[in-house]
C-alpha cells in the first residue's frame, strides 16, 4: 500500500523568508500524481500544487514550487516570500493513476508565519 510521510509536524518561517516542507512516499507504481494541499482553520482543503510523476520538470505555481526526486521518492514544497496568509496545515498527498485511484495523505505540517 502507498504511504506518505511528513516528518515535520511543525515549521515556522519569518514573513518574506523561504521555507521548505518535506514529504516522502512509498509506492511500487511508476505512474502517479503528487499534490500539496493547504488547510486553513476554515477546514477546506485547498490545492496548492500538483506534480505528474512522468514529468521531470518541477511544478511551479507563483511563490510555490516543488523539488520532485522520483528515485528518492521525495516531494518537498518550497514557499518563497512567505506571507501571513500562508499559515495553515499543509498536507502532501499521493494518488495512483491505475491500480489505486485513491488519494493518500500524510499527517501534515503546521506552518506558522511570524510577522
Amino acid at each position, binding site marked *: 500500500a502507498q504511504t506518505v510521510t511528513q516528518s515535520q509536524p511543525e515549521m515556522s518561517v519569518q514573513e518574506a523568508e523561504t521555507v521548505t516542507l518535506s514529504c516522502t512516499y512509498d509506492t511500487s507504481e511508476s505512474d502517479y500524481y503528487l499534490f500539496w494541499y493547504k488547510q486553513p482553520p476554515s477546514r477546506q482543503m485547498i490545492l496548492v500544487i500538483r506534480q505528474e510523476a512522468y514529468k521531470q520538470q518541477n511544478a511551479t505555481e507563483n511563490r510555490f514550487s516543488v523539488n520532485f526526486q522520483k528515485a528518492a521518492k521525495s516531494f518537498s514544497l518550497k514557499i518563497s516570500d512567505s506571507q501571513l496568509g500562508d499559515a495553515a496545515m499543509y*498536507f502532501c498527498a499521493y494518488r495512483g493513476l491505475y491500480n489505486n485511484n485513491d*488519494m493518500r495523505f500524510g499527517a*501534515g505540517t503546521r506552518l506558522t508565519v511570524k510577522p
Partner: protein
Amino acid sequence: EAGVVQSPRYKIIEKKQPVAFWCNPISGHNTLYWYLQNLGQGPELLIRYENEEAVDDSQLPKDRFSAERLKGVDSTLKIQPAELGDSAVYLCASSERAGSPLHFGNGTRLTVT
C-alpha cells in the same frame, strides 16, 4: 463553478444517537469521496464512489457506518449508533477523472458527547 457543498457544518450529538451528513459534489464530477479527519492528522479515506457504485469501501466500519449515492450525484454518510470515538471532521471531495485533483467541501465537524 460551485464547489463541493456539505451540510451541516457542525453537529453535536449524544453517543448512541444516529447522525447523517450530506454532500453535493461539483457538477460533472463522477467520483465522490468521503474522508475522516481526526484532529492533527491527515484525511483518511472511508469510501469512494464512481457514479453510484461504491468502488472502495474497505475502510468503512460497516457495523455502524453506511453511505449511499443513489443517483450518482449527491451522497449521504450515516453513522448509527455514534460512539465517542467518532468525533472528527468528515470531509467530502469530488474529482472529474482519474488523476484529477480532488476538490473538497468545508467538512462537517462532529462532536459526540
